[in-house]
């Protein structure tokens, strides 16, 4: 199967899952952004995405996207390490113009993944997971009322400045990951040429920045002493 056997096939999988995750981030970021203006609206959207089967299937696909993206990343990195050979350079410098992020995607990915564990524990496990568990008849899976009040959890965690700072670190890593990831995904599917290559890089940076600004505005908002 060429999606597994060939280098460009494997890259295509990285690219497609990456683009898919970016789409998710755009959605998730927009939704979060709403919380700054109206907790009710936020809760309404969250409720809509709560325990209905469509949302659940969506979640599963999303999770699958993550898993594939991560597994392929590990596989590719393993292969690339092998291709590098057993001896490494004693002195190795990067030429100007090589993005730092592009050389450290795996490290950034691992940081993102680690924080994502925290994030899932703090939010998903208190919200969608609780709702599902209740639906499946598990009564003592958590507070169903609070699970439906996403804004509560946002307030709950971000009022602690340590969490806000942690989230800012996480989102910074994600920003770096995206600045390279977005244009790289487009390059991999062949969507550039001499003229479009620099343009795509700029567009990617703008997109990554908008996404991260939407996310990061919440912890920053709390750090500045505001609350929702």
């Amino acid at each position: 199967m060429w999606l597994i056997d060939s280098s460009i096939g494997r890259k295509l999988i990285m690219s497609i899952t990456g683009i898919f995750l970016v789409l998710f981030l755009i959605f998730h970021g927009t939704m979060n952004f709403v919380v700054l203006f109206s907790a009710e609206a936020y809760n309404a959207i969250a409720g809509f995405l709560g325990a209905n089967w469509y949302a659940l299937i969506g979640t599963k696909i999303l999770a699958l996207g993550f898993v594939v993206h991560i597994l392929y990343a590990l596989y590719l990195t393993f292969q690339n390490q092998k291709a590098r050979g057993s001896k490494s350079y004693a002195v190795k410098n990067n030429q100007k113009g090589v993005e730092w992020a592009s050389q450290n995607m795996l490290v950034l990915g691992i940081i993102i993944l680690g924080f994502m564990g925290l994030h899932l524990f703090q939010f998903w496990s208190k919200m969608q997971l609780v709702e599902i568990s209740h639906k499946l008849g598990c009564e003592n899976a958590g507070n169903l009322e609070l699970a439906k009040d996403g804004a509560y959890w946002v307030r709950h965690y971000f009022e602690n400045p340590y969490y806000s700072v942690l989230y800012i670190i996480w989102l910074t890593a994600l920003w770096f990951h995206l600045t390279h990831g977005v244009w790289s995904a487009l390059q991999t599917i062949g969507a550039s040429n001499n003229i479009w290559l620099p343009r795509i890089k700029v567009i990617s940076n703008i997109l990554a920045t908008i996404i991260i600004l939407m996310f990061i505005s919440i912890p920053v908002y709390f750090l500045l002493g505001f609350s929702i």
Partner: protein
Amino acid sequence: MEKTINITLKIWRQAGPKAKGEFVTYKLDNVSTDSSFLEMLDVLNEKLISERKEPIVFDHDCREGICGMCSLFINGHPHGLDAGTTTCQLHMRRFKDGETITIEPWRSKAFPVLKDLRVDRNAFDKIIQAGGYVSVNTGGVPDGNAIPISKIAADEAMDAASCIGCGACAATCKNGSAMLFVAAKVSQLALLPQGRVEAAARAKAMVAKMDELGFGNCTNTGACEAECPKNVSISHIARLNREFLSAKFKD
């Protein structure tokens, strides 16, 4: 006017493909800043020979930046720090008095070291043999002007074709990927009507061979383009991806 500098060289010495190599340090005084990097190594070799030692083996041939034979990894960069330059075009005026210069061979699984700084780059030939050509025999071809080709396409094909096959791209890539090399050839021929006919088959065959030979996966870091002595653009990699993917989806 001519100036001279004193330098320290840390050079990788390895007796053979299976031998364990090590860095050896040499001091070299009064190096003319007008001399090329390879001429500096010639002077060092002459010195070693005068001490009845074996000279350092390194690849070089045309010494004017076109044959692609020279291949040194100098202070962390293939072909040294200067952009758009082969090792043989690098001059000593780019180094400071008292500087320590580290010289290593290309390091990549697909380019095993043969001796000292010399590596085996046959893998590149094998990739070309897998499909880096237009299948025409000698004779029986149409007139050169029979098919007009837009100047823009011809110029872009020329930019891709200026690849000298030195291997700096794969040597510097943190993934050991040969994508820029493969892309340059695929892109050149895909841009020209003569090569267009077999573009799909060519992309598939060359990528398959590249993978088989143990080169890594491209992650679009762009290090290859930044270090390419001929400034071949990674936009050719995008074209290769396009050619390859559309060929696979058509199958």
